[in-house]
């Protein structure tokens, strides 16, 4: 038997064991709890839901006169045999979901004959039953959309498909009043949006450049001789100036800082008879125009790339091209989105006709319009692209922000073991604040400066929302399952707890022996 311990030794041992336990219990356990607890900062989930509802309600904007938000399509009766506007909307929505795209406009389908109390639809949908080839996807006339149906009773799928094809690439999402709480939409690729965007997008300054381009080769023609004369070139400049004056572009200065123009005369010497322009003349397709344009050493375009308040100068080029030799050419014209226009002269140069063509091209590209204001008056003529661009982009960003925040809300709710750092809460709060600032600026009665600020705030809201979702501290903690924690705690604490428990057990046994 080991020698009996003195009372002092027992007390000492007790102190030693209890001092170990004191550190373990009063320091170790609280620290263990503090360092391994999943911290979930409460997020303003109700505020996020409120944002979503506000967006679905149209942000309090007057849809009738807001080009950035609402498009009404009046569906003619011949499309509604055996179907309703609601069913067509639902079918288009199904196609939207299938494509998985998103956009911003609010598409409302109304019966064209029964649209009482609503403003005149911007577009009408007509269903044609003849065997004419349907209009191409690139629509020049945006006011009427025709869909070909094989019989008098067009199915909703065919009509919806035609409507979808017509508007795909445009900024559409579906009115919740038609479809409940559906909020998917389409991204701009073709259709009206591409028409709008192939036009001159917003810029602080627009420069119109009129170029007389004369292609020369070894052959001579009268029109070339005439074109080379100073008198012809003077006349060219004079006509260009007339176009400029006729545009009355001073009214557009509300949204652009300046519109300027210049005229130029250029010469292109060609030695090879196999010219690109010959193919252009034959096919009449604008796809070949790019290669034709590449052969001309013209000033590159400064394109708008970011934001509605970019200071880039938008250059539109209008080229009057005289082919190199006399052939049975007819006058051709092309409007090239975001670039300008080309008029190819026929046998006889006709400057006035060319200038009229240029005028139409400019009008198509810039398309200044005026809007109805809340007080019933009409706004000044504005570049709708600049105005719509800001509003469209703002609403797209707001939509993106709300979708992202809603996804975060669902993620946090469904994963209780996911940490939510305080940084995420700060980002969500910032996103909501920016969201409200953006919406406030949208109510600015078409003040472009305010709308530009709104675009900035909306982009910031979307950015904050994305940062909140992809916060690395939140995501990284997801990859530590509970069993991994056990695997870490056991070898760390197991060897320590064994002697502590053994020591405590001995102390307890000794104290129990003493009690009787």
């Amino acid at each position, binding site marked *: 038997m080991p020698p009996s311990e003195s009372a002092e030794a027992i007390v000492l041992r007790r102190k030693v064991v209890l001092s170990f336990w004191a*550190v373990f219990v009063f320091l170790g356990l609280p620290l263990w709890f503090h360092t391994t607890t999943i911290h979930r900062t409460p997020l303003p989930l109700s505020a996020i839901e409120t944002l979503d509802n506000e967006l679905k309600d149209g942000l309090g904007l007057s849809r009738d006169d807001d080009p950035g938000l609402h498009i009404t399509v009046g569906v003619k009766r011949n499309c509604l045999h055996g179907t309703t506007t609601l069913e067509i909307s639902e079918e288009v929505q199904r196609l939207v979901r299938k494509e998985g795209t998103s956009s911003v406009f609010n598409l409302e389908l109304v019966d064209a004959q029964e649209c009482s109390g609503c403003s005149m639809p911007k577009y009408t949908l007509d269903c044609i039953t003849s065997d004419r080839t349907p209009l191409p996807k690139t629509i020049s006339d945006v006011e009427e959309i025709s869909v070909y149906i094989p019989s008098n009773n067009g199915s909703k799928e065919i009509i919806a498909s035609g409507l979808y094809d017509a508007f795909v690439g445009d900024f559409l999402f579906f009115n919740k009043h038609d479809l409940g709480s559906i909020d998917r939409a389409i991204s701009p690729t073709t259709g009206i949006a591409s028409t709008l965007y192939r036009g001159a997008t917003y810029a602080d300054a627009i420069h119109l450049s009129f170029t007389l381009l004369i292609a020369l080769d070894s052959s001579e023609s009268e029109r070339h001789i005439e074109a080379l004369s100073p008198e012809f070139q003077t006349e060219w400049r004079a006509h260009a100036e007339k176009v400029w004056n006729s545009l009355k572009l001073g009214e557009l200065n509300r949204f652009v800082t300046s519109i300027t123009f210049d005229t130029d005369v250029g010469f292109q010497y060609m030695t090879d008879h196999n010219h690109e322009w010959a193919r252009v003349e034959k096919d009449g397709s604008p796809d070949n125009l790019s290669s034709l344009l590449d052969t001309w050493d013209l000033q590159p375009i400064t394109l708008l790339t970011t934001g509605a308040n970019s200071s880039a100068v938008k250059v539109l080029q209008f080229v009057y091209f005289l082919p190199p030799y006399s052939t049975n050419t007819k006058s051709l014209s092309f409007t090239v989105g975001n670039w300008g226009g080309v008029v190819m002269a026929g046998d006889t140069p006709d400057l006035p006709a060319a200038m009229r063509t240029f005028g139409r091209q400019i009008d198509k590209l810039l398309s200044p319009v005026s809007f109805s204001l809340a007080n019933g008056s009409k706004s000044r003529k504005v570049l709708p692209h600049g105005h719509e661009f800001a509003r469209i982009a703002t609403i797209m960003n707001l939509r993106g922000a709300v979708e992202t925040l809603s996804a975060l809300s669902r993620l946090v709710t469904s994963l209780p073991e996911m940490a939510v750092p305080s940084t995420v809460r700060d980002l969500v709060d910032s996103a909501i604040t920016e969201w409200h600032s953006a919406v406030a600026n949208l109510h600015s009665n078409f003040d472009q400066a305010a709308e530009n600020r709104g675009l900035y705030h909306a982009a910031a809201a979307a950015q904050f929302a994305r940062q909140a979702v992809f916060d690395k501290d939140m995501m990284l903690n997801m990859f530590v399952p509970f069993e991994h924690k056990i695997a870490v705690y056991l070898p760390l604490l197991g060897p320590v707890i064994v002697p502590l428990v053994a020591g405590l057990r001995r102390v307890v046994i000794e104290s129990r022996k003493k009690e009787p």
Partner: protein
Amino acid sequence: MDLKTWAVFVASAVLKLSLNFLFPSLHSILGQHVEVTTSMTSFKQLKEGLHLYEIGISPYDGGVYHQAPIFLLLFKFLGKCGSTSPNSPIINVFYVFADIITAYFLCAISKSPSLAKTNQLADWVIASIYLFNPLVVATNIARSTAVLSNAAMIGSIAYACYNWNILSVMFLALASHANIYSVYLLPPFLVLWTSTTGASTASVIKYLTLYIAMSTGLASIGYFMTGSLQYLTATYGSLLFFKDLAPNMGLWWYFFMEMFDFFRPLFTYIFQLYSLIYVLPITFRLHNYPLMAITCIVGMTTISKSYPEVGDLGVYISLLSLFRFIFPNVRYALLAALVILHSLVLAPSFYHLWIYLGSGNANFFYAITLVYTIGMTIIITDTLRATLLIEFQGTEDPSKAVIQI
């Protein structure tokens, strides 16, 4: 102090000065070795911090300087007397003087009343064990600031042994200011300070208050020097929370290189707690031998601190040399010595293989640090066992057989 001891002092001074003179780049070579200095004691980083301080920028802004502000004051003063270049005469003399002072304190401890009754080694032997210890010499030549914090700690022990408690408190506060782990020595020091007057609550509170006041005073010096308390996170925060992840002779760095961020706070606290948890039990168990308790805690801190150096082992061995009476009961001295020797020889080689040649990896170096820790653990447990055995033999009838457990 006899002539032999002074001769040892002079010889060590000549040795260190000669090494610095003959091999001027030796301090730089040793200063780059992670075994000898760490980012918490590096002279190079001290110079950078000093330069920032002299041009009016807070040295704690850049995350480079992690040492106590008092070193800035000290070396700024030394710089005015000469140059702060590691090989400058003033720095050479200063570091040599610091080591000699430490050796002097060790000799004083060995002759103190608490150890006078035991069979002690001669002063010159104790001084030689410290001054000619290669680990201590390397630390000194590398200009590690651990030399100064160790000097303050041993000075505190020396003054406590002679009941100059106020000075002892002051030196301990200084040592704690330079190296936060010296705070762990407070409980055994309290036992030591109250050993003559008795461990009454009033005396404990008195020394505790004195210690806190002096520590606060030193901390406020840092505040007035830097203009904010930011230096606390840069110095003590870096040490306690292991912010500067770099290889060293400790156990921490490998864990923190590998673990998930989720567990980092837990491991930091667990590792710090592991070094703290032994303080009170050792103090209670060795309350009759507070010097041995201090030595044990110094040893435990050496293996469990976040940025250990080989100089810490040198100090621990020097403190052990004061307890000659336990040597006959130590059983694993050869084993421990060989383990430590092998680890100290292989550590630089494996580090070189890993970092410079690229033919090794972190596992090589960490394995050696584990071996080093095992060696230290053997020493600590063996000396502790020897101490408890002597205590047992002193309280029991020597004629009875001692039960080996």
